[in-house]
């Protein structure tokens, strides 16, 4: 039965690490804004491009 004690110990450690991760994330303000980052990730660091050159350049970038 002693295996149960080990298992429980491990499960607690895992759970507690998630709790700590959450507290850390919350402290550092990662939940303050749940909208802007979703927009920010869509911005390209673009160079000058004409409107009709858009498709071309994006396909080129993919290569």
């Amino acid at each position, binding site marked *: *039965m002693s295996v*149960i*004690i080990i298992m*429980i110990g491990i*499960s*607690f450690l895992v*759970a*507690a690490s998630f*709790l700590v991760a*959450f*507290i850390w994330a*919350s402290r550092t303000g990662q*939940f*303050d*804004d*749940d*909208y*802007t980052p979703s*927009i*920010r990730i*869509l*911005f*390209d660091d*673009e*160079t*000058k*491009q004409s*409107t009709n050159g*858009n498709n071309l350049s994006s396909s080129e970038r993919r290569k």
Partner: protein
Amino acid sequence: MIEEEIAVDQKQVCAHCGDDCKEEPILFEEKVFCCHGCQAVYELLESSDLVGYYDNDQLKASKILDRDIANRKFQALDLPEVQSSLFRYQDEVKSVVRFYLSGIHCSSCIYLLEHLPKLNPAVLRAEVNFIRKEVSLTFNHQEITLKETAVLLASLGYPPTINLDSVDGPRNKSKRSSLGMKIALAGFCFGNSMLISLPEYLDTGFQLDENLKMLFGWVNIIMALPVVFYASQDYFSSSWKGLKHGYLNIDLPISLGIITLFARSMYEILWAVGPGYVDSLTGLVFFLLLGKWYQGKTYEALSFDRDYTSYFPISVLRLTDSGEETVMLKNLKVGDRIIIHNQELVPADGVIEEGEAKLDYSFVTGESDPTLKYAGDKIFAGGRQIGGQLVVKLEKAVNNSELTQMWNNQPSENERVNNYDQLIDRVSKYFTIVVVMLALGTGVYWQISDPSKVWDAVTAVLIVACPCALALALPFAFGHAMRILGSQGIYLKNANVVEAVSHIREIVFDKTGTLTKNNPLSLTFNGKSLTEEEKSLIKTVTSNSAHPLSKIITDHFDRSTKKLPISAFEEEIGKGVIAEVEGNAIRIGSAVWLDVESIHSSNNEIRVYIQINGWNRGYYAIQVEYREGVFEELKLLRDHYKLHLLSGDKETEQQTLSPYFDSLNFNQKPLDKHEYVQGLSQSVLMIGDGLNDAGALNAADVGFAVCEDIHQFSPACHAMVSADAVPSIGNVLKFSKSAMTVVVIALTMAFVYNVIGLSFAVSGNLTPIISAILMPVSSVTVVGFITLAVNWLARKTFS
């Protein structure tokens, strides 16, 4: 009679802000711009390779503030006193500042603002918080000053909002994040404690050995400690506060429950009597905190507590012997001489020393006609100067001025709502008394029949009576209601407003801006068609006058209509203008003044008559436009409520309005409105806009502020109503009422559960497993019922 509709043909749209280019568009690189500001931003973006900004379809960049005005506006940012209160962080090179930008409204705004470092390398980092409409800037203060960053933002079309209340201290938001932490902790303990406690509930087939039992007991204790001593702090402090002030709130029975659960669990585990109730305890706290979080969610970007400080600038120019200096508003003293420029607010009462004032008091009184004042005249704070520069000698300090006094006189929070006997308080008062009596009764009974069971039974009563479902019913019902109203364009300050709204018996309406649209748009010319030359003459005259009606007429002309040189111009306030243009005598004004026979005018239109060389050419009819559906709504409302109208205007529209109201009051000054609302005895809902209604909004049980744009300035209120939602006020009232019915049903359900639980407890049969089942089941069913019922009601009411 020929009517001429205004037709705007071939709008030339500005390549930057998308506005119609009115007078003379500026051509730059084959693109059209409405002003040099817009062109400058375009150039800036282009030179920094950020033209991708314009690819976004949602784009509608803001109008650009003129650089000179911007420089003056942000002058205060050079004062060390202001700087120190605005900086979030500062070291030798870097400074961090956070600005509120009301102009942020779409993803291209984020794009542009976050690319600030590209536009000006002295800005090291820019991060937008879209929800709060804030930008956090890190900049090198050796290369750029705080003022320059503000001007930079303004030149992009995002002038930061800086006024007295943004300087007075940062907003407090840590409360909510600590609540999140408590929920996380309670959730963690709840889950683990359930896991540990599960074997206890299994049948005898699975017998734990004593060591494991001990271990599990100790783990449970470790789980219980942070929940009781950290996560449930608020309940203890709130019930203690309540007790000190002599009333019993809902937190008292909760605290009693938590303490009893904890004490009994400790006893059972430490003395190895039983498994304890730790899983119930942690679960209870977890659910309660969740309810609290749900209720506490508010609209972060909206500000409901604005007073005059939000409107006033933070600094003005003071004239001293040595010259001009920038001085903070709160440091102004009686006797100071200050300079007020065009478009600036008069911050305190004073006497004009130099210059001619044309003050627009629409901001405080709701009247749009500017008041003319000359040197030697006394002027009151709150007016906006239109025209030249003024020198004013102050007679009163800022917070003693006539108008600011009016806000100061008000209790900071509306007492009528706060002291309002809320349903939950009434319920919890009786509830607590009944529970305590029952616990005593149980104790006495068992003392007589079987003294060994006394403590079991008494603690069981306190545990099971803990009003978890009861405490959850209101937060969830109101929280849901608030969200649903939000999707209808009605933003409540907090969830308690739902209850206050459900008690409303009388409704007071403001007229201008509430029932009517803010700007009268429909304009028709009555008379023989004007020739192109006549149009030019009229445009020349009206464009020289600052009167709002003149502006409306000027704006309706095409760009092609030329302006001519003017040789004589005189404006008589409240009457009209006389002018001479290229030898033509032109008079534009009211019928009485021009001695024109006024064909009986209908009620809700204003007429401006035109006379050219003594010949009556006809008149412009400017219609006051009521919001769509307003009258139908008023008709419906009148069946259930007493309706009042308070208007700052003259009685011209009495006939149109009288069938819809129980009482009509015209010529109401802000203070009159305030007193009128205060004089009403029943529960009053005041619906208004603008600062002139601020007093009345505050005096009412519930104040709704109507806003064309909810992010713009609005007076302190309990709810902001977007302009389109005005005709559905009736539905809002109905919805809040039925939401209250749902709450009552949910409370009844909670009581039934409590009676079941208590019957176990009183008979001394409450085992941990019954409590572990009963508590979550009651909470979940009550919350589930409320969610379904409120959503169903919303569909029924608003579809």
